[in-house]
């Protein structure tokens, strides 16, 4: 857990530096009122102070609980599912939503979650129909179609 907390502190510290540099060309104060940089600078200072506090707390704590990372089957699922979520975005953009939805659900249930082919494909088909019914038929949203025309 300590390493994760230190990483979080470092990321937020970096974020405060980015806010500081990213607003460098904006005024903190203009005439008699706060400028565009006024609030971002306060936020950056707050982020930096709190990130340093978190880092200090993490280092000063005498005992440390291990981070609850998954192991075994849980880890395997995450290694497959997280890239699959990203793959769904790419698939939806290039193949259209129906194919991407079907492909993602089939992959997730059969490969990542070790269900049978029949169960996986049935779940994927039901999900695709449900998504189409809710978003396209009921709400009239035009989801991008793929090269096959659906």
């Amino acid at each position, binding site marked *: 857990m300590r390493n*994760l*907390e230190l990483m*979080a*502190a470092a990321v*937020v510290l970096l*974020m*405060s530096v*980015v*806010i500081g540099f*990213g*607003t460098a060309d*904006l005024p903190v*104060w203009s005439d*008699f*009122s*706060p*400028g*565009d940089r*006024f*609030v*971002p600078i306060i*936020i950056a200072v*707050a*982020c930096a102070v*709190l*990130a340093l*506090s*978190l880092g200090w*707390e993490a280092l000063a704590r005498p005992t440390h609980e291990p*981070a609850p*990372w*998954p192991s075994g089957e*849980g*880890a395997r699922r*995450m290694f497959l*599912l*997280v890239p699959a*979520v990203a793959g*769904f*975005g790419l698939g*939806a*953009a290039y193949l259209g*939503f129906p194919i991407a*939805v079907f492909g*993602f*659900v089939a992959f*997730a*249930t059969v490969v990542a*979650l070790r*269900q049978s082919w029949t169960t996986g494909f049935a*779940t994927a088909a039901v*999900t695709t129909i449900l*998504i189409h019914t*809710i*978003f396209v038929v009921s*709400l*009239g*949203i*035009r*989801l991008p179609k793929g090269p096959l025309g659906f």
Partner: protein
Amino acid sequence: MEAFDLLAQGFAVALTPTGLFSIFMGVLIGQIVGALPGLGPAAGMALLLPVTFGMDPNAAVMMLAGILYGGMYGGTITSVLINVPGESSSVMAAIDGHQLARRGRAGAALAVAAVGSFFAGVVGTVALAFAAVGLSAIALRFNAPEFFLLAVLGIIATASLGTGSPTKALLMGAVGLAIGAVGTDPISGNARLTFGNSYLVDGFDFLPVAIGLFGIAEVLVSLENVHAEKPITTRLRDMWMTSAEWAQSRMAVLRGSAIGFVVGLMPGAGATVAAFLAYVVERRFSRNPEMFGKGALDGVAASESANNSSVTGALAPMLALGIPGSTGTAVLLAALVLQGIRPGPTLMADQPILVWSLIASMFIGNVVLLVMNLPLAPLFAALLRVPYVLLAPAILVFSLVGAYAATMSFVTMVVAMGFGIVGYLMIKADLPRAPLVLALVLAPLLEESLRQSLLLSLGSPMIFVERPFALALLITVIVFLAMPFVLRRFSKAGV
């Protein structure tokens, strides 16, 4: 008298076919998401938000609120029957409710939870009507300094009253404000922190952030450890208590409802704190305190009543002040903004039908939920037999398609995916997500009101101490900020 007329008009809207359908769908979805381990009402509301875009604002708000309080009922079923709390506020019900189920009293546990939740929901809604009217009357005297301090209080209180580390909660609040600062400056209209990227000019939308942090992250974490627990079965004829059990529980319901509502009014405290507090208090009042943890029906009654009334209580500051006190009310607030409605103290005056139809819908929704949770509880219990591994991928794609549908842009979907991963890592690092989301919602109000205050005072910060309401709020902010650190020092010193 005017309030009763408005409530009657609210009922007229809520009792239309559209209104009834929205309430029914809201509480039904709430009941289901509440029962699904790993998916809470806030996540359910965020996922359903895109579906409400084309709806009438009254119907949309009634449906989303239905998910919010319906989720509290749903969490009980999984807690009692499979010892897996549908959400954190049902942990107390899981402890005692499941012990009762193992002794063959699952029906009694579910019945006392349903009756307690119904009582708390109805009494809480009456109290909400009075509290919202009272708070709104005070809030009409507020100006920019008070709104700035209210926004700060909303974020600080979430950190102060939360159950984890206050440093982590404050840090996440600051990160939420930093994310909210990206985009166009609210006063001058200049691009800020966009780094030349046109996608960032509009800033980060609340919806994909909430979908990612709550929907996607929670589903990913829940898929790490899917246990196929076999639910304990219950029959319709068992769904009631004996007269002795009711006598044992009725005062617990009353106390739990009162505690829950008051806790709900405090920004950031939430349903979990309310349920825990009510459980602890009930243990002191109980004739059988030794049964707590081993199957105390009054423990289930108190905690379940408290988590329901806390949800109702949390709506008061949201409706009267435009300040969300919980993640669920933050999503509801975002829904109002997406519907083109400006939340704040003038909401009750500007949109009386919306507010009062919401209040009326909560009376109706609680009746529907009582029916769902007494005679229909075995039916919902049967839903638990659908394996979660089949539902989870569908929930994930629904989240992503919903994010896309919100703006018809793949960027929104990518943002939701990104925040899904961030949310997953936050759960692992025990970083609270609620302060981040609340801060993101409150960031525009906080910045605008701070700058308007300093503009009014020609740059003098004394404006925050010269106005009586502002001074009172400033003192409250300082107390809330100092409280967790002082309490921690006392507990370390063994006081």
